[in-house]
């Protein structure tokens, strides 16, 4: 821990209080307040001074969040302001970016003036993202990029994209990638909504046609893209899989409320008994998901981390799907109706205030839980290989140039 400068909790709280006194959150706008938060080194406290941080232990960020919450109405959620930029992009930029890029981008990333998106997945590269085909070819001081990205959250509002592209197809797949920051307003970038199972478009497809990126926007070195991408992805998975932090909270709470509010004659006694047992199983699993995350944190704190920290993503994805399936079964005939309809459009959170509507929506939306951020199959591979130490699957793409890897259809 010697890499971090020591600071007492009280000193840090005092700094937050000073920020709030100078820029009362309820009186100034978001960009002003968050800009000041950045300038005070309270954006990412573990970043160096001058880059939104204080060079102190990242665990202390929780103190900042706690102090920011006190005695005010206006509290900003980083994951709502700029989820990809703040959670994944900034740490990557901090590790691999030039000083010029950091100074140009970090502040607006934190304030939310410039939203970021992630351009990794492609129609031909999902779980096997290192097999991606988007090409970047050097042309003087620029790279010219051609390809297609998919499942891009926020691309339609983003200023910056975290792009991984293939700069060398003649070496094995992991070695021929490079990582760029792409200005989404560049000529040749076309963003189209990608409509999903709910009829809404949370995500986008991004087409890149002869897009020019100046070389100085490369993060890390040419050919180092996979290593840089891992930094980004590591910051993604930690955000998934802890379940609800509150006892009885999260999806199971909605199911139990809907069960409690059911019309008395909806189920015959034998049917009710079956559903009751199913709900109770799901309650137990929800509790154990929460408790296992708690145990992982406790073991981590004690300097003794074990496998308990790795099972959350898989367990949560499978559990949440089952909870929403059960909710539909409890709703019965009521679930034959899908009130919002399937008009193709951008999502709106407003419609989901009602818990029955939320449940119907989540029944559909949660299908992605076991796909996004690592499919359950990939998660089982990771648990099997990294936690249990089982051998990997023999592979047909190892050690051969990317261009020679067999591709279906």
């Amino acid at each position: 821990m010697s890499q971090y400068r020591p600071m007492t909790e009280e000193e840090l709280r005092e700094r937050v209080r000073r920020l709030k006194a100078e820029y009362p959150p309820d009186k100034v706008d978001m960009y002003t307040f968050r800009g000041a938060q950045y300038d005070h080194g309270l954006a990412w406290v573990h970043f160096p001074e001058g880059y939104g941080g204080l060079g102190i232990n990242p665990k202390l960020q929780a103190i900042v969040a706690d102090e920011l919450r006190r005695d005010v109405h206006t509290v900003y959620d980083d994951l709502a302001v700029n989820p990809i930029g703040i959670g994944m992009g900034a740490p990557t930029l901090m590790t691999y970016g030039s000083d010029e890029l950091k100074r140009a981008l970090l502040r607006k990333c934190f304030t939310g003036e410039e939203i970021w998106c992630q351009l990794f997945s492609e129609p031909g590269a999902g779980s096997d993202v290192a097999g991606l085909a988007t090409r970047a070819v050097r042309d003087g001081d620029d790279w010219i990029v051609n390809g297609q990205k998919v499942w891009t959250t926020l691309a339609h509002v983003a200023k910056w994209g975290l792009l991984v592209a293939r700069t060398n197809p003649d070496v094995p797949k992991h070695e021929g990638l490079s990582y760029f920051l792409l200005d989404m307003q560049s000529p040749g970038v076309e963003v189209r909504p990608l409509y999903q199972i709910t009829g809404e478009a949370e995500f986008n497809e991004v087409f890149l046609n002869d897009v020019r990126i100046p070389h100085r926007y490369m993060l890390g070195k040419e050919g180092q893209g996979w290593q840089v991408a891992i930094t980004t992805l590591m910051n993604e998975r930690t955000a998934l899989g802890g379940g609800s932090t509150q006892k009885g909270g999260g999806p199971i709470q909605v199911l139990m409320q809907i069960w409690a509010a059911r019309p008395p004659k909806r189920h015959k006694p034998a049917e009710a008994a079956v559903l009751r047992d199913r709900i109770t199983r799901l309650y137990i699993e929800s509790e154990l998901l929460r408790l296992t995350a708690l145990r992982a944190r406790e073991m981590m704190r004690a300097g003794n981390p074990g496998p308990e920290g790795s099972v959350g993503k898989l367990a949560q994805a499978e559990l949440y799907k089952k909870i929403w399936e059960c909710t539909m079964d409890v709703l019965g005939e009521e679930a034959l109706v899908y009130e919002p309809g399937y008009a193709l459009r951008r999502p709106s959170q407003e419609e989901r205030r009602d818990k029955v509507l939320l449940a119907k929506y989540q029944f559909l939306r949660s299908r992605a839980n076991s796909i996004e951020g690592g499919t359950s199959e990939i998660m089982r591979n990771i648990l099997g290989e990294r936690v249990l130490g089982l051998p990997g699957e023999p592979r047909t793409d190892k050690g051969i140039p990317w261009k020679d890897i067999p591709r279906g259809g």
Partner: protein
Amino acid sequence: MDFAFTPEHEELRQTVRRFLQDRSDEATVRRLMVTDDGFDRGTWKQLAEQLGLTALIVPEEFGGSGLGPVELAITLEEMGRFLFCAPYLSTAALAVTVLREAANDAAKQELLPAIAKGERIVALALAEAPGLWEPSDVRMKAREVGGRWTLTGEKTAVIDGQTADDFLVVARSSQGLSLFRVRAEADGLQREPLPTLDLTRKLARVRFRKTPAEPIAAAPDVQPQLERAFLLGLVALAAEQAGGAQQCLDLSTQHAKTRWQFGRPIGSFQAIKHRCADMLVAVEFAKSAAYHAAFRAQEGDEAELPVAARMAKAYCSDAFFQVANDTIQVHGGMGFTWEHPAHLYFKRAKSSALLFGDSVHHRDRLATLIGV
């Protein structure tokens, strides 16, 4: 605070594990499981005298270590791993818990120091067939004539009933649920060892016919105390199940790494690997359930104990069985043989799942507690 294990806890775990590696290896388990007593008296004496484990949760004033549900859970988790054949669950866990919670001081004075020293095997006679596991289910009536109490009826699934020196019998008096001590040699007591599904845990049916019984309850009606003791028993058994499940996962993982078919270790096939990953999730959840319940019990969280204990018993029962069942499958033909230990865990898993009420039973009680 849940999961706040200390270095002393880890030390206890290692001590128990080292002892069992030496004293409860597979060959020893197989030798003992086919004996009538089902355990080795020399090992039991060592467990008491050298490790002090029979005294683990006996209060200090009665010659014990005065430790609690967390230390008991750690100990039983290791015993579950090794299928330790001994009257530990019956005597050192259940009997001590029932005495602590529901017995008068005279009975505690007489029995607890003797248990702590490893001198007496004491069995809890609670369940009455069929499916009457809970203290509130007890129907057996105790009769008093001229200050002398007798019991008539039958208790089943009495753990270590064939070797017990004393029985703690739960029965009803006119004033409520009560607790009696019955000596093994008492008149009209007949014990019938059961040919158990799980050879590593001995069970007996015990019949009482006007059998003299000594009333030892701390109060005229000790139903609340007995219910608390029962919940603590569920926590102890859940920890043992979590330990058994962990051992099954370890056996399966080891086998998947070393067994080759089609020119590669079978663990490289996703069909096997993914099954092992699902087992890992079940094992980690089972441990969370058992530890959480143990910590709630340790901290005297009376509101949460019933929820946590029933959750632990329900989940650990299903998880251990799932994992033990998968262990046979991962081992293929070998897992079906008598020679391989998989069947020992498989049988222990099902029998411990049914003991004290199965997962359906505890989910039913839990559902009521959480308002489902």
